[in-house]
C-alpha cells in the first residue's frame, strides 16, 4: 500500500495547470442557502484535491459538511444554495456546468456510493437491470452490457453472477448489496469515486470485506476516491491523505500515517483522544466539551475555539489561515502546542 501511495503522489503533482489532471479539485468552495440577512452558510473556503488513483479521506462529525462537500462534486447542491469557488472533476467545471454536462459527468466520470445500499437501488428492478442501466445510457449495446454486468458481479465477489442478475435487491444482504452498488459505480470506469460512509451501516466484519473489495477495485481501475467517513481509524487505515473537517471548514490536511502520531489541529487530537481503541494499552478517553457545530452556529474566528482547550483571545480575531506544520496543513494559530 505504501508503494501505491508514493505512486499516486508522483502522478498528481501539485498546483498550476497540472491541476486538471486531478480526479477532483475543489478550490475555496463556499456554500450558503438563502440570501442576504437570512443566508445560512454551510461551507466556507473548502479546498480538497483527489489525484488520479489516490484515496483521500474526508473526516468529520455530524454537521461538519463532509457529505455536502462530496455531493457538490457531482453538482448536487442543496436547494436554493449558492456556491462560490471552483469544483472540477477531471476537466469539467461542475459549478458552471449545465444539466446535460452534469448528467454526462455523473454517467461517465464520477460515481457515488452511499451509506445505505437499499436506498440507492430501485427495489422493484432486478440487479442485472441496475447494472446495465448506466452502461446502456452510455450507448453500450444490450448484449455487451449484460456480459459486462456478469463480469462486474464476478469481480466484486458475488457468487453465481448468472443467477444474481435475475434476482431482486431484497434477496441480498446489506453487505452483498453494497458490493453490487460498488460494481455499478465502477461499471462506467469513472475517474472519481465518491464514497459517502459506504460501510457505516454494515457489520464490522462485513465492513472489512467491502473495504478490501473497494480498495482492490480502485487499484485495478485506477480510480481516484474521496472517502467520506466519521471514523478516523478507518480513514487512516485506507487513505493516502486525510482532510479533517469541522463546522464547514477544513481544519487539517495530513498524510494519513502522520495524522495519528502527530496531529496538528487541536480538534484532530481531541478526536483521537476521545475515541476508545482496541489496540495497545487501555488508556482513558478524554471527552470534548460541547457538541459538534454546523458552520452557521459556530463562533467567530476559529470555529473550534469554544470547545478547544488551547484557545486564547487571538483565536477569536479571525479564521486562522492554513499553514504548514510537520506534514500537515493546519488551520490553527498554535499547532506547536498540539504537537511540538
Amino acid at each position: 500500500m505504501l508503494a501505491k501511495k508514493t505512486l499516486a503522489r508522483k502522478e498528481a503533482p501539485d498546483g498550476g495547470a497540472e491541476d486538471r489532471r486531478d480526479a477532483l479539485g475543489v478550490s475555496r468552495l463556499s456554500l450558503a442557502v438563502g440570501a442576504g440577512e437570512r443566508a445560512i452558510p454551510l461551507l466556507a473556503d473548502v479546498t480538497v484535491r483527489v489525484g488520479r488513483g489516490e484515496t483521500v479521506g474526508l473526516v468529520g462529525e455530524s454537521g461538519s459538511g463532509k457529505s455536502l462537500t462530496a455531493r457538490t462534486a457531482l453538482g448536487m447542491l442543496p436547494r436554493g444554495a449558492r456556491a462560490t469557488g471552483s469544483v472540477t472533476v477531471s476537466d469539467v467545471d461542475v459549478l458552471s456546468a449545465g444539466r446535460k454536462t452534469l448528467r454526462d459527468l455523473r454517467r461517465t466520470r464520477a460515481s457515488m456510493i452511499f451509506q445505505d445500499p437499499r436506498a440507492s437501488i430501485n427495489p422493484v428492478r432486478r440487479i442485472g437491470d441496475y447494472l446495465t442501466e448506466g452502461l446502456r445510457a452510455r450507448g453500450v449495446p444490450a448484449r455487451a452490457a449484460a456480459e459486462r454486468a456478469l463480469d462486474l458481479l464476478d469481480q466484486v465477489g458475488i457468487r453465481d453472477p448468472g443467477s444474481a442478475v435475475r434476482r431482486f435487491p431484497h434477496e441480498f444482504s446489506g453487505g452483498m448489496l453494497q458490493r453490487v452498488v460498488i460494481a455499478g459505480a465502477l461499471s462506467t470506469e469513472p475517474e472519481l469515486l465518491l464514497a459517502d460512509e459506504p460501510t457505516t451501516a454494515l457489520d464490522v466484519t462485513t465492513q472489512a470485506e467491502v473495504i478490501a473489495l473497494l480498495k482492490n477495485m480502485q487499484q485495478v481501475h485506477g480510480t481516484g476516491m474521496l472517502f467520506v467517513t466519521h471514523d478516523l481509524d478507518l480513514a487512516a487505515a485506507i487513505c493516502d491523505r486525510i482532510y479533517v473537517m469541522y463546522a464547514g471548514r477544513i481544519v487539517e490536511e495530513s498524510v494519513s500515517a502522520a495524522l495519528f502520531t502527530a496531529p496538528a489541529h487541536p480538534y484532530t487530537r481531541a478526536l483521537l483522544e476521545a475515541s476508545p481503541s482496541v489496540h495497545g494499552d487501555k488508556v482513558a478517553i478524554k471527552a470534548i466539551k460541547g457538541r459538534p457545530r454546523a458552520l452557521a452556529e459556530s463562533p467567530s474566528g476559529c470555529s473550534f475555539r469554544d470547545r478547544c482547550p488551547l484557545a486564547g483571545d487571538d483565536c477569536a480575531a479571525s479564521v486562522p489561515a492554513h499553514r504548514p506544520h510537520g506534514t500537515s496543513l493546519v488551520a490553527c494559530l498554535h499547532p506547536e502546542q498540539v504537537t511540538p
Partner: protein
Amino acid sequence: MTLTIPALRARSARRRRRRPLIVSLAVAFLVLIAVTGLLAPVLAPHSPDATSLLNSLLPPGTEGYWLGTDSTGRDVLSRIMYGARLSLLAPLGVVLLSGVLGITIGLLAARAGGWADAVISRGMDIVFAFPSLLLAMLVVAVFGPGLTAPICALAVSYTPFVGRVVRSVALQEGARPYMESYRVMGFGELWVTLRHLLPNVMPVLIAQSALAFGYALVDLASLSYLGLGVRPPDADWGSMISQARSAILQGEPWSGLLPGLVVLLTVVSVNVLGEHLGGSIGRKQSEGV
C-alpha cells in the same frame, strides 16, 4: 455571538407557520357563521317562521328582506341564521360521536393486534363500503324523521373513516421506541395507550374530523333536502333548499341558491381548515424525527 440549532429551526419554522390567507378567510367565515347561529335571536331581523304570503318570493336586496323571502314569505336571511344552529350542531354531533367510537375501535385494533385487529378492520371495511346516506335513510325509515336517528346513523357510518386513521397512526406511533421504553419502565398497556399514544394520535384526528364535519354537513343537508332530516317548521339549510324546489322551477332560485351557497362556503372552509391542520401536523412530526 453564536446561533444555536433550535434558534435556526425556530426562525425557519416561524416563517413556514405563517397562516396562508385562504385559511384565515376560512376561519373568519366559520366564526361568522357560528356567531350568527348563536346570536340569531338577537341578530335576525325577522322570526324565521313568520310567514307572509304578501311578501313571498321577494328578490334579494329588497328593503327589510336583504336576502329576499321564500315561497311562503319567510325571510331567507333570518332562516339562514337560525338554520346555522342545526346545520352546524348536527354535523358536530356526528363528528364527536364517530370520533369517540373511532378512537376506541382504532386504538383497540392497533394495540390488540392479531386476530382482534383483523376482525375489527374487516368490520370497519364492511361499514365503510355501505353508503352512509343509504344507511341514514334506512334508519330514518325505521325510527321516523328527526335529527337523532340520522346523526347516529351517520356517526356509525363515519366511524371506520376515523377508526382507520386512528389505527394506522397508532400503529406507526406505537412502533416508536418511546412506547417500548414506557413498557420497560413498568407502565401498563392502558396507561401508555391513553397517556402517550392518544395525545400523539389526536392532532391527526382533529384534522381528519374537520374533513368529516364537511361530509356530515352535506349528508345531513341532503337528508333534509329529501325531507328525512329536520322536521318543518325548524330551519336548516338543507330543508331550505328542499323547500325552494317549486320556487326554483318557477324561475325564482334565490331562496334555494343562497342557503346552497352558505353550505358550499362552509364545507369549503372546513375542508381548507382541515387540510391546513393536517399539513402543519405533518410538518411538526417530520421536524420531531
